[in-house]
């Protein structure tokens, strides 16, 4: 066992390298914090309760899509009686969540969710910058 020193230091190095991402995340405190979303500045109330939106915004958007495209229902009445236009770019982004990057993308990137909404729907900020 003349190589004991080499073997143990090799094992130790291996353990440190393998567990490095955990230590780094713990140090940065990102694991428990979650993404830092930019919340709407003026709007205090979403079209549905926040708890519902957090878990089921995709269901709401899918039903908006079906109703608007298939049945021509282009308005949505929220629980508090307010009427909204059914529009991802026009209502969600323009009226409340000013920035797609700092709201939609931050959370989707964090959760490693890739969606294709914005392959077609236009981010209003992008539109003003004319062609990409």
């Amino acid at each position: 066992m003349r190589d004991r020193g080499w073997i143990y230091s090799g094992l130790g190095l291996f353990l440190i390298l393998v567990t490095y991402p955990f230590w780094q995340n713990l140090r940065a405190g990102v694991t428990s914090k979650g993404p830092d979303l930019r919340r709407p500045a003026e709007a205090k109330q979403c079209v549905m309760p926040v708890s519902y939106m957090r878990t089921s915004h995709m269901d709401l958007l899918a039903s908006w899509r079906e109703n608007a495209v298939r049945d021509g229902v282009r308005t949505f009445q929220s629980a508090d009686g307010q009427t909204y236009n059914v529009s991802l770019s026009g209502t969600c982004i323009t009226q409340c969540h000013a920035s797609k990057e700092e709201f939609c993308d931050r959370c989707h990137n964090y959760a490693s969710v890739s969606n294709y909404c914005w392959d077609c729907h236009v981010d209003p900020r992008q539109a003003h910058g004319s062609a990409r």
Partner: protein
Amino acid sequence: MILDRKSFLRLTGLSVLARKLVAAVTPKRWAMVVDARKCLQKEGCQKCIEACHRMHNVPAFAEPRHEVRWIWKEPFERAFPSQENLYSQAAFRDKPFPVFCNHCDNPPCVRVCPTGATWKRDDGIVMMDWHRCIGCRYCVAACPYGSRSFNWLDPRPRLTQMNAEFPTRTKGVVEKCTFCEERLARGEAPACVEACPEKAMVFGNLADPASEVRQLLGARYTVRRKPELGTRPEVYYIV
């Protein structure tokens, strides 16, 4: 009051039902009449095409094989190949006629779509749901008017400006004229109708005997594109 899932679905269903009821009581059938004589007055006019393509984020591809178009000009003999009157052919030969989706009463594109991405609405508009289009191009093959375009390439880099109020499409999706259904929902006329300086395009409800389109169709002789195919196109041309 907090809306739970059940009442949300119930409300949605009821509002859809209410719309269907209203549609049943007041029938609607959108159609267009194009007065070719007025249209031909200004040579080289592209106002309708520009307005439509700008509003709907239609890309301009340089290569014809990649072309995407909602409304374009077609020489008379190609737009109306079944018009066999030699003398009128001579008068109109090579004259550009504005053509677009005919919103057929018997649309062949709808019959072949395997996903239901295109369908005929109660008001006659042949609609598209770009979310559902899988890019099989059956509809492109089925349409006898060439009204449907396929996005062979990503359209976004080819847009010089983007209208944020209307989505673009992606590579692999078919698109066409929708009679500006998003504008009709707001009570506005289609973009091409509004943009035409000669007021050569008249849009209206065919189910209403007092509408301008019905008045024109009653008073003037009109032709349709390839009516012998039985698609029952709903765009009429005064020649």
